[in-house]
């Protein structure tokens, strides 16, 4: 019985946190947030050098061969730092190929994804708001249709596309795909619309299983990111309450604000165990995984959004400005909450999966 982190896991999390504290402090983050340039390759390279390119890629293919709990801990740390870049889509692409690809697919892509020599992403969303394998409509031998909200679609060397019938296919962008920027709210994770018009695509042989596992993985990574983000905006608000003065005292003296901050903590801290367990279930308790991933995504991203709103208010007028760091996390919360379906959608899935 042990529901806590191993030393290795703590070390992993500390290492990533330290790197991000040095390389993505609020000023560096803000520069990337405001940049026209969608992708800071130097920063990304740094993450790749830490080995974050292949967390879930088996060691035999050059990855770290870690478990979902490890990837979730990294995602939490990325969320805490609002780290910009393609981590989400890249990690999911590697997982999808590792789970569903042929040996040739794996040999072709996994080593390069693990080192960061190639960038991967996933294309799951569709124009009608569908996100889930059973809803996908893009298909055909030569791939046709539109995928929306694809992270870093224009930069990716390989896109794992969710296809009609709930399978997956690999597309190396080129002929047959038009990719354009989607003006998204979260500038730390840029999105693209990808229109396929007879694009060459290779179906993953175990695509169907891989699709549902990758969906669960995505839900867990979003929940983990949201937990990190919620922790951060709480910390920022507490810090602000300890320094900002009004009526001759720091505003942290005001009981109403104290209780708002306590409530924010209460919305945040207990959720840690929830995303931990969803990740652990992915690794070790398959019968719980699908449902807990849905519940964790719904719950934790909702909490993050709520806490981000409260954090904005806790900062007073300045909280509403672009200059205030909170807004970058606020927008990340919007992403975590909407990407791959709203909390309402996943709560209904959780209800169905429980046989309610």
């Amino acid at each position: 019985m042990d529901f806590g982190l191993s030393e290795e896991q703590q070390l992993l999390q500390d290492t990533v946190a330290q790197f991000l504290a040095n390389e993505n402090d609020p000023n560096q983050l803000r520069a990337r947030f405001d940049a026209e340039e969608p992708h800071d390759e130097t920063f990304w390279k740094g993450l790749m050098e830490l080995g974050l390119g292949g967390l879930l890629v088996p060691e035999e293919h050059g990855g770290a061969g870690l478990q979902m709990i490890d990837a979730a801990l990294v995602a939490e740390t990325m969320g805490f730092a609002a780290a910009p870049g393609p981590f989400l889509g890249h990690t999911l692409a590697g997982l999808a190929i590792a789970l569903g690809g042929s040996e040739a697919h794996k040999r072709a892509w996994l080593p390069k994804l693990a080192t960061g020599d190639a960038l991967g992403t996933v294309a799951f969303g569709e124009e009608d708001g569908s996100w889930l394998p059973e809803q996908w409509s893009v298909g055909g031998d030569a791939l046709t249709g539109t995928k929306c909200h694809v992270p870093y679609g224009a930069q990716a060397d390989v896109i794992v596309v969710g296809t009609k019938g709930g399978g997956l296919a690999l597309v190396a962008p080129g002929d047959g795909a038009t990719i354009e920027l989607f003006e998204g709210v979260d500038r730390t994770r840029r999105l693209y619309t990808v229109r396929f018009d007879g694009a060459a695509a290779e179906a993953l042989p175990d695509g169907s299983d891989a699709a549902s596992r990758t969906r669960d993985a995505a839900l867990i990574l979003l929940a983990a990111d949201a937990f990190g983000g919620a922790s951060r905006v709480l910390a920022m608000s507490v810090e602000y309450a300890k320094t900002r003065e009004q009526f001759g005292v720091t505003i942290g003296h005001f009981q109403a604000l104290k209780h708002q901050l306590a409530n924010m903590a209460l919305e945040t801290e207990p959720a840690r165990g929830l995303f931990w367990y969803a990740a652990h279930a992915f690794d070790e308790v398959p019968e719980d995984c699908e449902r807990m991933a849905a519940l964790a995504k719904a719950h934790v991203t909702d909490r993050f959004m709520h806490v981000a709103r409260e954090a904005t208010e806790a900062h007073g007028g300045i909280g509403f400005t672009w200059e205030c760091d909170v807004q970058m996390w606020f927008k990340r919360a919007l992403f975590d909450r909407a990407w791959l379906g709203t909390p309402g959608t996943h709560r209904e899935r959780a209800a169905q999966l429980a046989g309610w």
Partner: protein
Amino acid sequence: MDLSYGPEYEAFRGEVKAFLDAEWPLKGDEAKLDLQGQAVAFRKKGIAAGYLARSIPRHYGGSEQEADSLKAQVIREEFARARAPMEAMGIGTMMLVPTLLERGEEWQRERWVEDTVLGNTAWCQGYSEPGAGSDLASLKTKAELDGDDWVINGQKIWTSGAQHADFMFILCRTEPGEKKHGGISYLLLDMKQPGIDVRPLRQMTGGADFNEVFFSDVRTPKDWIVGKRGEGWLVSRTTLKHERNSIGNAAQAQGTFRNILKLAKQSTIDGKPAIENPAIRQRLATLEGYVQAHVYSGYRQMTAGLRGEDAGMIQLMNKLHSTNIGQEVAKIAVDLLGDGALTDPSQGARGLFAGPENAAGWVGQYMSSLGVAIAGGTGNIQRNVIAERGLGLPRDYFADAHKR
């Protein structure tokens, strides 16, 4: 109870309609003026007819009508229907003009009231400072007399329209010996002069409705002061009340509700119209309870005004109630939007009276519903006001101690 306007006011409505039919849009040469020119020309006619600037004496350019909230309401309704301009809206008409009428010097009223109401002169407000917020006692911007001029140094924040304003009304510390709310004066100053640096304050939505304004050795004549030296805090008090009332307004809440209802009809959940989803229906009907309560509270307050009675505690609640409604609308909207919530709000379109017209507009509203809370004092300050002035609970310890 009678929610109709009655024959007298319906007759009055007929007069207003006839006036509008005849005069708006403008005709002839006047129709060739630019938009601003047309508005000014039309406002003059409206004032002459007794429909605009009704509470302002003729001597200062108003139409000096007997107070009649119901006539005012009829005028608002008909002018809105005809899309005809009313008094120049903005901080000048809403806050400066009443202050000048109550506390200003004769020459100040003559110089500024009419031009402000007509829209020839635009104002901005210099109250908040970066260190202060709702705590005016911490004000730091200084004005010192140098010969016949005040010389102003310091910084203001949350100043709407500072780029376009001709003048600012500003609170400055003029009596360095005094502390807290004492020692503050209410000055007027010309914005078109050197030493003033206006920097837009970008909001999280990407828009920039506010500014920071920096003053270095900015000058204004000695007699551009409203009220006495050191009484500025008192002078500013009447106007803040105006601002609060203006935000909490029932028609706006009703409009917001219509917008979210429209969104629910256009959206789908799991492939079916969202409006058919029982969870959404419950949330909308729950929200509508608050909205209708807000609307009829508005009628109650209007009636109290018409009767010259005090409407009681409800007056202190308009702002917080409508903010709560706006926040709930925003939350429902983001659920209805689904993927739309991923959209950059700076691309948002907002239709006049129609609310957000696309996903980006709604995401902007999701953020602004917080911003609105901030604009007229945060929720916590509103709750202090309700608790202290409405329920008679003890005053806040720190605010009180700080003022003493």
